[in-house]
């Protein structure tokens, strides 16, 4: 744009004033340097940009010493040298790509983004005579861009994980070095005790130092300390310039003082992590080696980030509470221990779906109990998942115990449970298998439940009859009873459909595999059979279990009382 041999020659011969006047009206900074790296010209914007009053003053100062007043880095935070500057490169015969340059003025701490573009001025023969550079202040655009990217990275991080510690550590890392050189995250409980959950420093060598510094800080925040104040008021604080004496004034001893000195903190801000009207923590941001001064704009961004992090903290705490509730509920819905049943050895298996997510509660259940006149085993599956299904399992189990006192017959128990379910609003269905445990004999009644399997000493597997409909579905349902003999050496398995429907890579576990597993384990104890089943399902299954699994294994033993 400024090409043309005529123009160059006019500058070189000192006849450029009218062009200079024109260039002075531009808001972009323009400089022209000749082959000997002498500054021929700088417009008014360039003179002011570099902190000078007149062209003569600027010309009298070598570029080297101007650069020395600044910390100069590229976009990735790598220090830039003279030889990276486009005009210098061009004049040395190298390519001069546009350069995005981040500068921090050492004295004032002011941070700026400049875009440098250089073009050559050539004489009539096309020989390079000088380099003209246009410096555009892109601080506003670049800062907005950096802020937006950080917010979106934070958003992704906060949405991606429920592990709070890990999330907040990542959050601190994202803030460094773009927003600050050091970021520390502390969570606060209601007693003002802090839990240090994350920190990041732009210089990996100083991370150790930051960790050691933590040891000097009291676990309990004092109300008159900065962090104590930020938490109490819920208002963030910005310390644009912290005098060196003030940084070390808080030191407890010489070692602490040394650590603080070594960090070279220049500027700091403390921002509360607030959700609704509660403060759950505080984030501290400092600039150190970069010499940058934090600005009200930085504070605004930090506040946005802290607000998002606070929501993540709140969600995680809520999640922990909820899974605690779910677990407590689940615990209360399962028998802790199987009772001793005269004449029987019994083992149980229970695996709620998605057990490692802790929030799941299942609709499968079992219950073994000694009633007034007989002992019973009950296994069942409430369709559906979640808390509703889980609470209904409680109803089924306590209902069965209650009914057994008045009507100690499996069919009667199922009949009453069906009535109970049908009286509830909405559709609540349940499959169940109920057995009265006699001496070497069971009386079974089934409500739409997978039949029990029996394996004898010669590894023959048979299915028990399964006549009745499921519970909670039909007005006119009836349930019958079947007596099933369980001889010495025979093993019986009651299970829910989570066993046969466990999904592998290509197909379901299925009844056939289950029968084979029983045949292979003829003669083992109930506990050993269920261990083998649990392991087989674990190996077969692909990914997380989608359904609950419950199973009871029984064998008759010589009656003792």
């Amino acid at each position, binding site marked *: 744009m400024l090409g043309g041999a005529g123009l160059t020659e006019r500058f070189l011969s000192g006849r450029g004033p009218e062009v200079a006047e024109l260039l002075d009206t531009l808001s972009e900074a323009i400089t022209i340097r000749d082959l000997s790296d002498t500054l021929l010209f700088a417009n008014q914007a360039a003179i002011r940009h570099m902190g000078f009053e007149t062209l003569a003053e600027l010309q009298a100062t070598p570029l080297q010493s101007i650069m020395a007043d600044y910390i100069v880095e590229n976009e990735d935070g790598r220090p830039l040298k003279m030889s990276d500057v486009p005009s210098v490169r061009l004049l040395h015969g190298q390519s001069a790509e546009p350069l995005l340059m981040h500068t921090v003025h050492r004295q004032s701490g002011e941070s700026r983004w400049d875009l440098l573009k250089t073009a050559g001025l050539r004489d009539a023969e096309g020989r390079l005579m000088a380099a003209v550079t246009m410096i555009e202040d892109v601080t506003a655009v670049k800062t907005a861009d950096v802020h937006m990217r950080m917010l979106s990275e934070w958003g992704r991080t906060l949405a991606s994980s429920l592990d709070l510690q890990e999330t907040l550590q990542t959050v601190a890392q994202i803030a460094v070095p773009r927003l600050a050189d050091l970021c520390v995250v502390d969570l606060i409980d209601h007693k003002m005790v802090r839990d240090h959950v994350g920190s990041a420093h732009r210089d990996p060598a100083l991370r150790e130092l930051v960790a050691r510094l933590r040891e000097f800080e009291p676990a309990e925040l004092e109300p008159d300390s900065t962090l104590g104040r930020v938490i109490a008021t819920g208002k963030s604080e910005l310390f644009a310039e912290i005098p060196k004496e003030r940084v070390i004034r808080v030191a407890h001893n010489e070692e602490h003082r040394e650590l603080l000195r070594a960090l070279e903190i220049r500027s700091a801000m403390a921002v509360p992590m607030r959700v609704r009207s509660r403060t759950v923590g505080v984030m501290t941001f400092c600039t150190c080696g970069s010499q940058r001064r934090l600005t009200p704009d930085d504070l605004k961004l930090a506040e946005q980030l802290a607000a998002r992090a606070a929501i993540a903290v709140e969600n995680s705490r809520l999640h922990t509470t909820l899974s605690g509730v779910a677990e407590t509920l689940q615990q209360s819905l399962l028998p802790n221990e199987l009772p001793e049943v005269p004449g029987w050895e019994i083992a149980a298996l229970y695996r709620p779906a998605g057990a490692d997510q802790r929030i799941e509660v299942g609709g499968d259940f079992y219950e073994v109990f000694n009633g007034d006149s007989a002992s019973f085993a009950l296994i069942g*599956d409430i*369709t*559906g*998942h979640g808390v509703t299904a889980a609470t209904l399992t409680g109803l089924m189990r306590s209902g069965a115990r209650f009914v057994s006192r008045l009507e100690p017959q499996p069919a009667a128990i199922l009949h009453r449970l069906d009535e109970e379910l049908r009286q509830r609003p*909405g*559709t609540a*269905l349940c*499959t169940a298998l109920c057995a009265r445990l006699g001496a070497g004999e069971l009386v079974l009644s089934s409500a*739409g*439940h*997978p*039949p029990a399997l029996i394996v004898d000493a010669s590894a023959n597997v048979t299915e028990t009859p*399964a006549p*009745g*409909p*499921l519970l909670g*579905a*039909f007005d*006119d*349902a009836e349930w019958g009873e079947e007596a099933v003999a369980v001889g010495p050496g025979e093993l019986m398995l009651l299970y829910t*459909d989570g066993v046969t*429907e466990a*999904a*592998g*890579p*290509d*197909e*379901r576990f299925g009844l056939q595999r289950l029968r084979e597993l029983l045949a292979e384990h003829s003669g083992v104890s109930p506990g050993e059979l269920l261990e083998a089943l649990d392991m087989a399902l674990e190996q077969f299954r*692909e990914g997380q279990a*989608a*359904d609950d699994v419950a199973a009871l294994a029984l064998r008759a033993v010589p009656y003792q009382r």
Partner: protein
Amino acid sequence: MDSGFRLEVRTEGAAAIIAVSGELDLASSPAFQEQLERISGPETELLVIDLRELDFMDSTGLSIIVGAHQRLTEQGCSVSIVRGAQQVERLLDLTGVAERLRVVDTPEEALNGG
């Protein structure tokens, strides 16, 4: 394991036919339930649930069918099921659903009232 659940709906006069294929389990059942909830009597006099192309159904799927049957019967709409794969058939038998709902071999059989 990909459930590959698919659902097709058509109407014939006052009858609605919902054909399902793939696997009807916990993951795919919400779509099925949503579709069934759009149907109500007495505008619809007959609902035919075609299970011929269904490879697998779990108790969640079954409970949706039973729930729809309970609701629609009260609204004066009858429900027929077209029987499907062995596993599905076994589930319907085992739970007593096959005995209490009308189970037929083809949608035409249900539509012709035969």
